[in-house]
């Protein structure tokens, strides 16, 4: 496969098509539902699985090494900022639920508006500093590290 789409759950919304980094989720023209057009270029990255609003996409492990009968399902909740996984083994002996945070801020709130920041001075432009440095590096007012401040000097080039 490795991803496949359940016929009865897909409504052809195209979100998986929009997100797949490999460009392999496509809408079947006659059925108007999505499917994986090139399984051997699928990374099992789960981007489409996470994006599908109807949980219509699932993964069946690669046929060259994975036997049938397992499942790894996911639900990614941007509003709550968490992702939940459920892993079921082929032999049924293991059935795990795992949860992890995906962000510490409400989505889309933590980013600076760089146009609203004070413009960099001439000296900053001429220096090695990047945005908000050096404060972001060491949280003090020291300068960026140079060979000199590191107590280093350029050693001669060696060819061979």
């Amino acid at each position, binding site marked *: 496969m490795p991803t496949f789409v359940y016929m009865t759950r897909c409504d052809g919304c195209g979100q998986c098509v929009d997100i797949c980094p*490999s460009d392999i989720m496509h809408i079947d023209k006659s059925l108007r539902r999505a499917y994986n057009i090139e399984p051997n270029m699928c990374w099992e990255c789960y981007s489409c699985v996470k994006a599908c609003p109807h949980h219509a996409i699932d993964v069946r492990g690669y046929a060259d090494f994975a036997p049938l009968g397992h499942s790894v399902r996911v639900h990614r909740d941007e509003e709550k900022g968490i992702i939940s996984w459920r892993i079921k083994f082929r032999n049924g002996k293991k059935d795990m639920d795992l949860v992890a945070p995906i962000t510490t801020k409400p989505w889309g709130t933590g980013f600076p508006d760089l146009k609203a920041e004070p413009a960099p001075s001439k000296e900053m432009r001429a220096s090695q500093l990047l945005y908000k440095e050096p404060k972001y590096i060491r949280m003090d007012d020291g300068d960026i590290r140079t060979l000199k401040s590191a107590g280093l000097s350029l050693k001669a080039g060696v060819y061979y």
Partner: protein
Amino acid sequence: MGYKTIVEDNIDVLVVGAGLGGTGAAFEARYWGRDKKIVIAEKANIDRSGAVAQGLYAINCYMGARFGENNPEDHVRYARIDLMGMVREDLAFDMARHVDSAVHQFEEWGLPIMRNKKKGSYQREGRWQIMIHGESYKPIVAEAAKRSADKVYNRICVTHLLLDEAKENRIAGAVGFNVRTGNYHVFKSKTVIVGAGGASNIFKPRSVGEGAGRVWYAPWSSGSAYGLMIDAGAKMTQMENRIVLARFKDGYGPVGAYFLHLKTYTQNGLGEKYEEKWWPQLQEMVGKEYLDPEASHLTHRPIPTCLRNHALISEVNAGRGPIHMVTMEAFQDPHLEEIGWHNFLGMTVGQAVLWAATNVDPKYENPELTTSEPYVMGSHATGCGGWASGPEDVSPPEYFWGYNRMMTVEGLFGAGDAIGGTPHAFSSGSFTEGRLAAKAACKYIDDGKAEGIRVSDRQIEELREKIYKPLETYRVYSNEVVAGTVNPNFINPRQGLDRLQKLMDEYCGGFGVNYMTNGNLLKIGLKKLKWLEEDWHNGMGAADIHELLRAWELYHRIRTSECVFQHTLFREETRWPGYYYRGDFMKLDDKNWHCLTVSRRDRKTGQYTMEKAPLYHLVDDKEKTAKAG
């Protein structure tokens, strides 16, 4: 073919490929170029594109200067020993001194970084790695880039860089096509920052058939960064330095957190430790300078990754496989067990799928390890890529031509996998390089270096014809046969990719020949590769736009492969046993090859010029005991 031509003009900074490097570039460009026009052209959707599409569970490059953990020069020493000396120390130092600021921003943007509750610092996985809940790492950095760029063009496969016709060797933008609409896109720009990623699927993967996409580096890493830059006439470096990874078998699940944080270890099929017994033989091959187990023991100096591979490969060849990762001890701790699983779910789900399918519970069974097929990339533990200028306050004259991270083509910059000689940048370092490139690109424009750029309609029209030729070839010849994919006039992109992988594997040292090659094999391989390129130009058939995408990805892979062949042929030694071996020059040869290799492909003739570049050591050898980790 009724595809429209869409021209975006007057761009100041064009970011080609917005993975970790490209997003860093777009973000920082806005700060230094607040009135500049910043445009992103990306093959996929920047929310989930590139090597970090699935997420990551660790940030592998973080100094922790804030917590007094490491300094940039420590990192240079580490990268240098790991790559057997071959590192652009100016670039590595520069990346390392800025990288913390990128990581602190990620945290501010909402990336959950784990904390060491006792120390108050970030939770270390190893000396350089910190642990994150990184499932949404890519959407988070993409958001920062989207807020900064004037326009984001998703689903544009960039095929060529545009060259200025007013001044030789100067960049003028890029062209490509939209993978959905098929439209032809022209981006006229004063500068271009290439962040189009590394190259997977160049060598035959171990996975076959339906599973061929289960490679360690993403299957969409098509070597475009290299293909674009080489075609534009940029100098390349260290392209022989392909990487082979020790990973969990079949799923390619990463082992970093397992080794470093969970403290798991390896043993052979007989349950014995095996690594150390290969050191004496290896020391003979590479010399004490690069392998000194005693010093490593005393100072925590790492054993180079490639040498550990060598031990693994040799042990399997000696008939004592398989190699196992001993997880059964660590996994008795429920907390560590959870980390082990999360590590995959956050960055290589396929490994979790495999273990679920094959009932491998690492708590009760030690999983198998293997070595991967080789990859060509510049940001992980290897340093392939473009030959770039360093920063003015650090770089010696041979490494400095005015603008940080600018290639040897004026106005062309790079970040991440695109930059050669900066291994161990990883995700945070790639982002940082993007930021550095963006600041320098803005300066380049402000200095008036991009004045008077001229791109003729002819150049644009010629490229248009080239781009769509595979569709035309298919249209003309496909009906000559009844049906099916066998046609005497063309091959399809998959057939071309299979051929490339087979010849790279057999002639350039893939897993199928135990990573072994020699001068004779390389020459045959180059000849066969030339035929593949000819077939690409004259007989590549694409049935639709999706296949056209694959065709151009293959083209960039071919170009990358050719450069890998040239470099491997040129460096007549085995510098990195465990990554590849030159059977005709089995030893590391510091006398002749303590240098960087640099190539340039002539745009008109296709001929390669190879040269040696000096290796500067900016950082002394003092190795202190690691503080962190």
